[in-house]
């Protein structure tokens, strides 16, 4: 059924990306429950032309321990040993990088946590939407639906260390600020800053209450958050804006199109990269000056990731298409990787 394949490619959504610790592999998670792996050394070699497409190294369909249900893969994170995935049924599971590079498509998960808790009033399934790994690579932060909690796990023994509840709707994104502090953006319209030292919520931001950010027609939900020192960037229904954490005040609105919803933001090299419901990748300085905006293959961008490991220093973004756009230089799209050839 050739047309079915074409249809699946047409409706494909890529939700998250992760790089291997050596920077050699890019893994992309999609709505069909597949992990698509690209060998970057190969993809970046000069042997490719427009007519010779860059093919994935392998696909891995997550079987979820034998249960036949289909889940979507929403979140990815990576540390030195593991690739960690979160799916639409609340499972977090890890593949060892060694297995992935040696066994490819036959790799089996080496651990699995049930990362969301059941709540009486809301029927399941509860998904995991965001994963992050601490700088030392020993703790995993997850955010999702159900109890809408931000959870901190020890990757060493799989124990749940903290579970911060407070959001009234599911969590879209989490970001680490320091060893003790993390931020979470939620569908309920708030960004909460959590501190393990006080074991609870330190601050709450509500961009929809700020006149400059609010866009009532699009709702108050927050789709993405990123933190760097004193600065926090978040957006979603409300406009993307830079917030100053010490004063808890809005510093600068980052203007995109009037009705662009924001799904992805990334801070790297003192620059802000963001994308949303527009096929463009935006780039600003911390002062809010626009640097570039570059066209992309996806109409909606769900994730932007920069590879700082190894020698393949690239930025990639993915979203509502089967293609991953690769930027070697952020001025233009270098090429695209097709996850469903």
């Amino acid at each position: 059924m050739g047309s079915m394949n074409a249809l699946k490619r047409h409706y494909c959504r890529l939700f998250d990306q992760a790089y291997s610790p050596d920077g050699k592999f890019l893994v992309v998670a999609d709505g069909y429950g597949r992990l698509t792996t690209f060998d970057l050394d190969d993809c970046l070699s000069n042997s490719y032309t427009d007519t010779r497409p860059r093919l994935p190294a392998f696909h891995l369909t997550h079987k979820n321990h034998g249960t036949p249900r289909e889940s979507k893969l929403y979140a990815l994170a990576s540390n030195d040993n593991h690739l960690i995935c979160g799916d639409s049924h609340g499972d977090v599971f890890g593949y060892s990088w060694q297995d992935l590079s040696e066994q490819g498509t036959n790799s089996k998960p080496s651990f699995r946590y049930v990362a969301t808790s059941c709540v009486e009033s809301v029927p399941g399934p509860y998904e995991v939407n965001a994963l992050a790994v601490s700088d030392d690579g020993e703790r995993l932060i997850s955010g999702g639906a159900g109890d809408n909690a931000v959870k901190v796990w020890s990757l060493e023994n799989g124990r749940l260390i903290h579970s911060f509840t407070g959001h009234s709707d599911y969590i879209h994104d989490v970001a680490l600020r320091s060893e003790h502090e993390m931020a979470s953006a939620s569908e309920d319209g708030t960004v909460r800053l959590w501190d393990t030292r006080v074991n609870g919520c330190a601050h709450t931001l509500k961009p929809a209450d700020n006149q400059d950010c609010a866009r009532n027609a699009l709702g108050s939900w927050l789709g993405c958050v990123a933190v760097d020192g004193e600065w926090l960037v978040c957006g979603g229904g409300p406009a993307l804006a830079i917030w100053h954490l010490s004063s808890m005040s809005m510093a600068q609105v980052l203007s995109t199109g009037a009705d662009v919803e924001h799904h992805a933001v990334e801070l790297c090299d003192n620059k802000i990269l963001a994308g949303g419901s527009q096929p463009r990748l935006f780039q600003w300085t911390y002062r809010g000056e626009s640097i570039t905006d570059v066209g992309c293959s996806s109409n909606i961008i769900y994730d932007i990731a920069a590879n700082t490991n190894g020698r393949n220093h690239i930025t990639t973004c993915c979203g509502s298409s089967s293609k991953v756009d690769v930027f070697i230089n952020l001025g233009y799209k270098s090429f695209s990787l097709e996850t469903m050839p």
Partner: protein
Amino acid sequence: MPATTAAPVSKKRTSRTASGNDQQQNGANNGTKRPSTGDLKPMSLQEFYDLEDKEATARSQAEDEAQFTSECESLKKALTRFVDNPADDSAEELKNMMTLHMIKLRRLNRLTQFRNRKMRDRAAAERLRVEEQHLQLQNHRHEIEHLQKEVDRCLEFKSADQDIPLVPVDEFYTNAPADISKPDVTKSDNHQQRLARLGWELEERKGLSKQLQELQERKNLLASDIGAKEQRLESLKPLTQSIMEAARPMQEAMGIKLDGETQQREMAPLMPKELYVIGIQAQAYKDISRDEKFEVIFGGDVESAKKLSAALPTGKSASQTPEDADSGNEDEERREDGAEERAQRLSSRKRRATVSEAVERRRELALLAHPLHVVFIITCSDKTKVTLTFEYLSELRAVSVKCRLETDSAELSKLFATSGHVLYEETLLQQLFPGDTGLTCPNPVGQAKLEHLNIEYETYVNRIGFAFHWAQQLAGIKFADSTMTRMTREAFDRIQLCDLLQKIIRRVRRRLQTRLSLHAQITSLEGTKINLPKALIGHYPTKVLSRLTSWKALSSDDFKAHPATQSLQAVMTSDAFATGWFFSATMERGDAKMVTLVHVGDAFPDIAPLFILLLKTRATRTAADCSSLKTLEESVNCTFARSVPKAHMASLLCAQLQYLTSRLDILLEAESARQSTKDFAREHLFSRKARGPDRELPFAFQESSNSFSFS
């Protein structure tokens, strides 16, 4: 000039004296006054002119020139003298003298003028004469050239005799009688030899043509003889028939059932083995399965099949003859061509004239089917029968299938013949196996032949039938390198040959059933009613507020040109969209309106109908720019069919539409809940308005709790 120079000197002198007087006279004549001169008798003007003319002709140029110089000299002298000593002469005298001189000069001038004109006239006359002669010369030259050409043409003349291939000289002398060859004359004289050879040729040819005529007559005689005999045999046929008829009651009485089998036994050796294989399998199937609703018949024109097989040399298959005969002719022609260059040129011209006819004839031959065929009659329900006629295309070496639908219902029979309708006979067998359209010749050799003759199988499909791959499989034809797609090949690889016929019959029955169901569904949808089987109703919420408000057929071009389909272009290029039926459905709830473009393929319901959504609320959205619509479109197109129980797949179209109307409710209610507007009141249960990074809407219906959540 010679005439003037020859004038005598004496005459010159006398004329000079006379000229002196004349000059005076002349000057007076030309002047305004007319002084009377007493000593000379007056002249008439005509006389004067004649004199003057005569004098002018008499004088020479040199004389005039000398006189002119002397006159000028004396004039100069007189003037010099006057200038040096103005007192010497009286002015009056000088004046007279001057006048005299001037008159003389003037006369000289006049004479010269006259002479000049004379000379010019003469020169003109001369030239005229020369030109006349020149023209004459030219004429002569042309005449010469013309004659030369005539001579050349005569020299180059070639008679028709040169084109006649003659018997070689040696042969001529040995064969021809002496009275024709006349060796004594012709050996030395080439011309005579040629004449003699031509004469011999004529004799020879006359003889041969006479022989030909004789033979032809004999042939005609024999043919009429054969015709008469055939007629007699023919007249015997009714007799034998009547004997058979008469014998039948006795045979029946004796319990011998021969009829069908004898017919079959008679046909079997004449039948192409491919059709025979199909027939044998079908009979075996009928015997084993005891399928009363399946019949197999051997049919066709036995006589022409007999003729065909008789015309064949044994051991050669039917497919080879026409082509071989053709190429044989060509070879002969070619051999003749070798004889002489001129002859070749002639014959090639002749051949070119018949080339287009030959191509046409070869096309016809290529598409020719064997006169015998096998017919399956598959009864599907009490009212409908599917008749499959298998024919063997000898030249393409492939089996073709013609399909006919028969029914007792008048309404249906009309639909069966309606082109473009879901019950149209032509489309009934399409994609019985994935990708099997029967529109190309499955045999690569046959396909190459068609390409060579510039024929597309597709355009003749109505005449010669579809060359489905399953028909080839059933006939046991295996192609080393088939034109089958990978998909089709995989489908056949999974089927054992012994199961194939059963599968085909089952699929044909199922196909007709689904088509009848599709027809019923479309008819109900045209009345904007979504008819669902009872078993499926439970899969949808009891309360659906969105309504189907219109359902109409679209043309394929309208469908493909619709703005909503633009983002799906990559999918639309697939072959599946070349055929099938296109519709546009509209669903409404309140102010919201969802326009849905629907494509139902030939392979319905194995390939689910495709829906393309366009939602008009405040703004117009398609799946390309709205994530929720994209999710809905994806689930109706890709995953929904899996949730329908196999027994009810025939109702897939209505099920999909019911799915869309019920989910449109959720989409509108969830969106208005997200935006906290009251456009669409929340009439359904759903606890979450969004999930995941893409804020997916809860489209999964939970029957147990009558609520919506996520899958």
